């Protein structure tokens, strides 16, 4: 396994494998995954249900541990890290948007957006959260609870929350999956706009081909294998430009 990684890679994956134990025996969900995502790049991962998209997302975001292989997140290898160190890494570098929004339903819109900033010890969390909510057009909804907001508005709160800590990498799991097409479009516009502004690397898992096409690259998960979609630029060869030794954990 390689222990060096490209200087400008946001995510680098080598020979990644994930198996789980079931009643029927071991089940391999991901096999031989190799991937290199440049900083600031937007990548869509497409694939049918059960193809392993979300599993891959969980592994890339340091939420889960692979069975084999290695992942470098912003140049840092994940395998030597324990759960606490992974959490610290996520706090510094990563953010998320989920299909089911995952807002804390008892906190207001403002408080939900403040949450990651507070966890990261940002001083002016409240002001930044107000500004972020302004950016997503919800200045008038600061004190509203999630259940008082429409689905689209809830996802906008989630987007504001995702960008408040200026993450290096943003993982989005079906961000428009729970929305109608009009709201879905608006959310997608907002997501790509903020992504471009902040030069965040975006890993987007989706069923939606239209949404996927707005990303720079489209990858397809099929039966545990990851393939570059036809018509898209050829996948980066992870071994092509190994320039820099990965940081030791």
């Amino acid at each position: 396994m390689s222990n060096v990684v490209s200087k400008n890679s946001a995510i680098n994956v080598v020979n990644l494998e994930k198996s789980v134990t079931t009643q029927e025996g071991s089940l391999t969900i991901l096999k031989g995954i190799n991937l290199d995502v440049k900083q600031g790049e937007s990548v869509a991962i497409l694939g049918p249900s059960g193809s392993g998209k979300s599993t891959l997302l969980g592994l890339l975001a340091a939420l889960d541990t692979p069975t084999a292989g290695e992942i470098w997140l912003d140049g840092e290898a994940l395998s030597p890290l324990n759960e606490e160190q992974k959490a610290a890494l996520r706090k510094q570098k990563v953010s998320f948007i989920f299909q089911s929004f995952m807002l804390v339903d008892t906190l207001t819109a403002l408080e939900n957006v403040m949450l990651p900033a507070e966890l990261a010890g940002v001083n002016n969390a409240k002001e930044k959260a107000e500004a972020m909510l302004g950016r997503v057009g919800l200045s008038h909804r600061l004190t509203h609870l999630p259940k008082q907001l429409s689905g689209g508005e809830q996802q906008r709160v989630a987007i504001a929350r995702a960008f408040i800590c200026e993450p290096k990498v943003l993982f989005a799991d079906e961000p428009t999956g729970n929305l109608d097409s009009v709201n879905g479009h608006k959310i997608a516009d907002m997501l790509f706009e903020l992504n471009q502004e902040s030069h965040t690397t975006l890993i987007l898992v989706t069923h939606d081909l239209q949404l996927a096409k707005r990303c720079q690259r489209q990858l397809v998960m099929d039966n545990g294998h990851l393939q570059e979609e036809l018509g898209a630029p050829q996948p980066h060869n992870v071994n092509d430009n190994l320039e820099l030794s990965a940081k030791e954990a």
Partner: protein
Amino acid sequence: MELSLAWRLFKRELQQGQLLLIILAITLAVLSVSGLARVSERLQVAINGQATQFIAADRIIDSPVQIDSTILAKADELGLKHVTNMQFNSMVYAGDQFQLVTVRAVEQGYPLKGHIELKGDNAIDKGTDIKADGLPKANEIWFESRLGGLLGYPKMLELGNSEFNLSQEISRLPDAGFNPFASSPVVLMRIEDVAKTGVIQPGSRVTYLYQFAGEEAALTAFENSVKPLLNNSQRWVDVQSGDSPIAGAVKRAERFLLLASLLGIALACAAIGIAAQRYCQRHYDVVAMLKTFGASSSQIRCLFGIHLLLVTLFGIGLGLMGGALLDLGINQLLPPEIAAYSPPLTRPILLGISTGLISAFMFSAYPLMRLLAIPPLRVLQRQLEGLQLGMWLHLLLSLGAMALLGYLYSQSWALTLTVVAAVLLLGVLLSLLGFVMIRLGHSVGMKTTNPLQLALAGLRRRARQNAVQLVGFSAALVLLLTILALRQDLLNEWQKQLPENAPNYFLVNIAPDDAKPLNDFMAQKGIAATDIYPVIRGRLTQINGETLISNEQAEAGEKGRVGISRELNLTWRNTLPANNELLEGQFNQAADEVSVESGVAERLGVKLGDKLTYVIDNQELTVKIASIRAVHWETLQPNFFMIFTQEALAPFAYTSMASFYLDEKGPNNTVSGEGAPKNTLILELIQQFPTVSIIDVGAMVGQLRQIIEQVSLSLTLVLVLVLLASALVLIAQTEAGMATRQRELAVLRTFGASGWLLRSATGFEFALLGGIAGVLAVIVAEFALYLLKTQVFELNVYMHWPWWAIAPVSGALLVALLGVWRCRQLLNQSCGELLKAGN
């Protein structure tokens, strides 16, 4: 950061009512403990206060010789008030008449509790008793009415070498006790006057009564240091020593209060346990989300630690306020002299706070551990719940919390461990039944043809969850039924002890010649006299031919079987007295048979068939023990250690005793038709039958009634708290299954199940669950009651047949109503809303 975030979460969740259940549960636990501690302390003081009036003090040392002065010095040191009394028998003379009296020589300060009641001036005419202000002056004697009757109300009385003025007529001494056999009337004098009478000589039989009163803590300290120093001839007496007629009532009430409070606490704890689990489950997503955004374990631990602490403190605050309100409310119902007493607040407050903290944190510990272990990946895979720690840990922590709280409250490991073991047993029993349901529930699909089938299918499908709910519902019902039945039985028992129209007058020393005229007099006045008992005094001298020795002889080192040192009051009867219970043998059938009270039989070490020899009027009488009886000494009835047959006692001279009830207005059915007032009638009785002694126990009956009323109040209060705790457990348990139910309703709705079908099926399902819980509860409650009644309360055991119908039906109704009420929002939602909310 954690503090502000925890505060924010707490504030928001509180505003949105999401913490209602757990806060209510903590509040109830704290309210029960702090309120009950204070109320029961107040009632305890009230009951003991009333009760101590029966012994005129808090504690007494009863000794045949003067006690060591260091004991009194110790009492002074502890700040206890004390007085010394002497009691002895002596002859008094008035002109050429004489009479044996019991002399009570008392020190200034007597009585420490209660008061002496005197007949008012021309008392018999005026008919009012007044409280004595002080004691007899020097050279003065106060006397019992009986003595006045016997000696013809003389002005002066000779006792030994001195003459005394007979100044006041005593209606009742507070510590006179209930002894209708007291053959000699009592006179009261100052202890300083005893020496000059010269009646006490070395070797005279005198009883020294040292009476003490003061703060409970000082009394306990005194008891601990002094009691071990007493020898066999000295007795330590308190209200519970068994002599006092209320001892039994107080003991049982105390046991009940303690037990019911412990069960109430256990129930409130169960509610906390269920609510804590729900509280943690609701935060699974929040924890997963926080971890995803990079919160460290210590941050999350800290956040939820503070959050739970805030919830707990809020609950404790409300609970303490509720406890204070409860105390205030109860105080309104108490007589002013008791209400005026304010027990210190420290113990109830500390108990309340520790109950809140221990119950909230120990019951939440396991759910909290699971909560903190929620993996961040749950944000993507919603079914993930993290590590499954062993249930044993949860059980251990919960039982540990219960035991700790129980001990804090009761200060008795024995009682606490019994309750905890019972709760554990109850849980195991009910879980086993739940397990059976799970086995039955395998491979049952979802049938949607009619609501009952749908309900049955639902019940089996959710068998595991329902089994847990069943344990909760049944446990709440079991404890409720147990407390309900015990309370009722205790009240009935006391009612039996002091029925309406319980005798308030005893007539003793009725000569055989007076029996018929007295009977005629009573009939003429329309007074219904109770049983008449002949009384003959005799001494037990031999058992199976072996001569008995006295306690004093035994103490002096003499070898031999110890008997009863005093003369006994013997009677004859052909039937078992109503308030006696035959334990062994047959009640007197042959002439030479005797029936012996169980306590004395045990003390003497005798059994059925043993031969007892008595000396009566210098003649020997030998009889065989034919039966052993249990006697309820606490009843205000004449009770006897030994009951003979009429044939056995026929050769001996006897007097009789009877009792009757007379209210203030006199008998209802008087010959004159106007109703002779009580005191006129009593005067008439005294005048016509001067040798018959009348003992008025009305005041004692009144006091007993008051005690019983106060105890009943406390029992009702505890019942209400247990009821509330049960209701909370039911609600918490219903709440616990809502998430799964919501998803199922969504699916059924989506597939076209009508609102009516879903509502009926939900109602049926909860009703079935409640009904089964009701049946289980009755079975377990009957068993628990059997154990409690036989082992703790000494009450009669019987089956509560109506419950077998009432409990399942009301369980079904109650749980169905709760369930449908709780599901009403879900049942009214569209399937879109349901599906969305269920995600």
